[in-house]
């Protein structure tokens, strides 16, 4: 297909819905990721609201213990795998090719496949609610609570296979982004000229590539135990229950960096833009990101101090975990130094980014506390840990992502989100999350265990729990403000030019939203901050000087994704025929995909 300035949308000929289903454009896939993940964020948030409503007062009976188990399991699983990771993926998709000056990702159809597998995996996991069999063994599903003996229903099957499906989506995307970043950079875009967001995304992909196979194997073991009577997590046959914990946390701790590193990249773009200063210590930020990703592999057992590993292991894992605080602290000082002496503009994205630094630091400090084994033994399985992880993942990751939404929205949709509503969103979220999660430190230290559906009045934590519930409702309301802002902006939003914030990186060099071919001519950069440097890059004309080839769509990725998820559905139903039929669809789709003419 030829796309010129006269027909900017190469897919106009086909129907709108069909063109979205078959799209291979990284920008559209990014929007699909973002929209889908946002819906899952609302679902996960609703689950949190129900949890908080139950814990509002002592001895409450709003939900049963069984429902409560399902709610906290699905809340954690949803927020991590269906909201945070894919929200990051939305930005990877939309922003990375623009930041490195590429026309698309390396494998556009594989990219579409990743999205559809993610969507279907999310639906698969949530379909469990329709069968009254939502997963209920916690987001880290410890063996042997998940064994067929203690969890005879299909709840755990939904969970294990849902995660398996989502892992495939993440892995496929990771191979794609690594190849894209290594090989699709525009002339002059050396590795050490890449924007920090792309750098942190790059490191994240390596963590995904190495960490997800471990959880894949752990889940295969679990499924074989449940379906074929294997003994991996069967103590009666000599199996060791700690095998699951080791494999899960070997994945689980690096997963924390999969969640937080992209956000660190986002704020590293936002802070310099609104301080009108280049990022302080760019190479140090990059290297400390690499260091975090590397050391992150050697600390997993700090989640297992309570399992009694012995003094030597406790000492090593405690010390290694504290070590990670160093590169993380370095980043925090770099961000502060970036703002120091800058011409700071307190826009919505900037407010979220500053809050990110502050809240992530609080979460980091409580993290160093339970890196110490004796302290951890007091805190394990209490609300103190819940407070810690929410300061890191909500105060950190989500606040950064909200900032990124406000920052890149004008690039993606061509209109600026409303600043007044944005600031209302920010302050409600900031106050709401502190009111929700700060008291949980104290609730935990006073001895309230997590994952228990109620508590007695004698524990004396009723007041603080009520405060946490009020905070959570505020937080939920703040998200509705964002939804309203999006709706308001679509109709009345101020039009954005190419570079509404005066930012320095390549994605701000073309019109907003970008044309389907991204760059009318291939950019050539001579600087790390091409738009802040005289002669930092070549001129990108608004009209392409010659026609640009844009790859057309393909429906084979969708069919392949359907086949894959169908296979797991067959396994869930214990139906060999469904599984085989779906596998056939998968194989045929992969072959058709491999042999269809699809020119890059």
């Amino acid at each position, binding site marked *: 297909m030829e796309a010129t300035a006269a027909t900017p949308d190469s897919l106009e000929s086909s129907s709108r819905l069909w063109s979205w289903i078959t799209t291979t454009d990284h920008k559209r896939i990014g929007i699909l990721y973002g929209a889908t993940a946002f819906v899952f964020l609302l679902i996960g948030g609703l689950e949190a609201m129900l949890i908080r409503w139950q814990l509002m007062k002592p001895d409450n009976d709003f939900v049963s213990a069984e429902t409560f188990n399902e709610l906290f399991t699905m809340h954690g699983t949803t927020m991590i795998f269906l909201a945070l990771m894919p929200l990051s993926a939305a930005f990877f998709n939309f922003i990375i090719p623009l930041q490195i000056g590429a026309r698309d990702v390396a494998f556009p159809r594989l990219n579409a496949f990743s999205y559809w597998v993610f969507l279907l995996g999310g639906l698969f996991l949530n379909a469990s609610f329709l069968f009254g069999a939502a997963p209920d063994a916690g987001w880290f599903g410890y063996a042997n609570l998940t064994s067929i003996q203690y969890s005879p229903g299909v709840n755990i099957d939904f969970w294990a296979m849902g995660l398996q499906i989502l892992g495939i989506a993440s892995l496929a995307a990771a191979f794609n982004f*690594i*190849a894209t970043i290594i*090989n699709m950079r525009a002339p002059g875009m050396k590795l050490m000229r890449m924007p920090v967001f792309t750098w942190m995304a790059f490191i994240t992909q390596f963590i995904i590539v190495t960490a997800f196979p471990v959880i894949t194997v752990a889940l295969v073991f679990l499924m074989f135990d449940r379906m*074929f*009577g*294997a003994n991996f997590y069967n103590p009666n046959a000599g199996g060791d229950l700690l095998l699951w914990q080791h494999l899960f946390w070997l994945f689980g701790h690096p997963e924390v960096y999969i969640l937080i590193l992209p956000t660190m990249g986002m704020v590293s773009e936002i802070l310099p833009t609104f301080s009108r200063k280049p990022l302080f210590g760019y190479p140090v930020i990059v290297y400390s990101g690499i260091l975090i990703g590397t050391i992150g592999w050697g600390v997993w057992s700090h989640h297992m101090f309570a399992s009694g590993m012995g003094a030597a292991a406790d000492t090593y894992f405690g010390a290694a975990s504290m070590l990670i605080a160093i590169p993380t602290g370095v980043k925090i000082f770099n961000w502060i130094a970036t703002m120091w002496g800058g011409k700071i503009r307190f826009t919505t994205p900037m407010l979220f980014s500053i809050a990110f630094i502050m809240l992530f630091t609080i979460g980091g400090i409580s993290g160093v506390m339970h890196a110490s084994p004796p302290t951890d033994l007091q805190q394990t399985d209490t609300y103190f840990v819940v407070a810690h992880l929410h300061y890191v993942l909500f105060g950190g990751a989500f606040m950064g992502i909200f900032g990124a939404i406000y920052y890149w929205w004008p690039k993606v949709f061509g209109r600026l989100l409303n600043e007044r509503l944005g600031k209302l969103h920010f302050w409600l979220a900031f106050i709401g999350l502190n009111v929700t999660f700060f008291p949980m430190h104290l609730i935990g230290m006073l001895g309230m265990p997590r994952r228990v559906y109620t508590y007695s009045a004698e524990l004396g934590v009723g007041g603080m729990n009520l405060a946490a519930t009020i905070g959570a409702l505020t937080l939920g309301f703040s998200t509705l403000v964002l939804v309203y802002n999006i709706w308001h902006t679509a109709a009345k939003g101020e039009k954005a030019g190419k570079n509404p914030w005066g930012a320095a990186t390549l994605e701000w060099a073309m019109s907003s939203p970008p044309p389907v071919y991204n760059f009318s001519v291939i950019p050539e950069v001579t600087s790390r901050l091409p738009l802040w440097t005289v002669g930092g890059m070549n001129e990108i004309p608004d009209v392409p000087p010659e026609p640009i*080839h844009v790859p057309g769509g393909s429906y084979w990725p969708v069919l392949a994704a359907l086949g894959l998820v169908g296979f797991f559905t067959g396994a869930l139903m214990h139906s060999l025929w469904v599984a085989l039929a779906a596998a056939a669809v998968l194989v045929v789709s992969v072959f058709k995909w491999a042999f269809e003419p699809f*020119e890059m």
Partner: protein
Amino acid sequence: MSTAAIGHYTSTGQDTRKIAFWTFIGSECMLFGTLIATYLSYEGKSVVGPTPQEILNIPLTSVSTFVLLMSSLAMVLALAAVMRGDTRYSKVWLATTAVLGAVFLVFQAFEFTQFVDEGLKISTNLFGSTFFVLTGCHGLHVLVGVIWLATLLIMSARGKLGPEKAMNVEIAGLYWHFVDVVWIVIFTVVYLIQRGPAA
């Protein structure tokens, strides 16, 4: 296409598919690494038999290992033939590689049925669970490889696998050699170095 030259520009000069495939192999290393580590940590911990010492047939598996090693040699020759545009030997060596891979799978199928007859199933003990999942996962990889090679063979027979498509064969070769190397590790760890007391 007018922009074909731009479309083929790469930052490193390497083929993008090859880079992606190397990352894939990296993740496969973690996959097999986890499986092998689990096998090792459970070795000798079964509470009932049959044990590896009682059941593993080293001479038979040495033969199938040799077959798989030879298939890697045939793979090298297949790539060389495709690169020099030798359609006749492209077909010969691709077919040889695929057939040797299939022979390995027949050996494995025979071994698995033999073990089940002798009372070792996936549910029998820890050895059964770890052995079948580890070697079964490897066998599945060989099966995918055989299908891949058969596809290349058909392409070659239709005259659609000229030297300009050598990268397709090179990547299939990377996969095949990787699967082969993994087997050498499995053969060493599971068959040659048997540790731990029998139950």
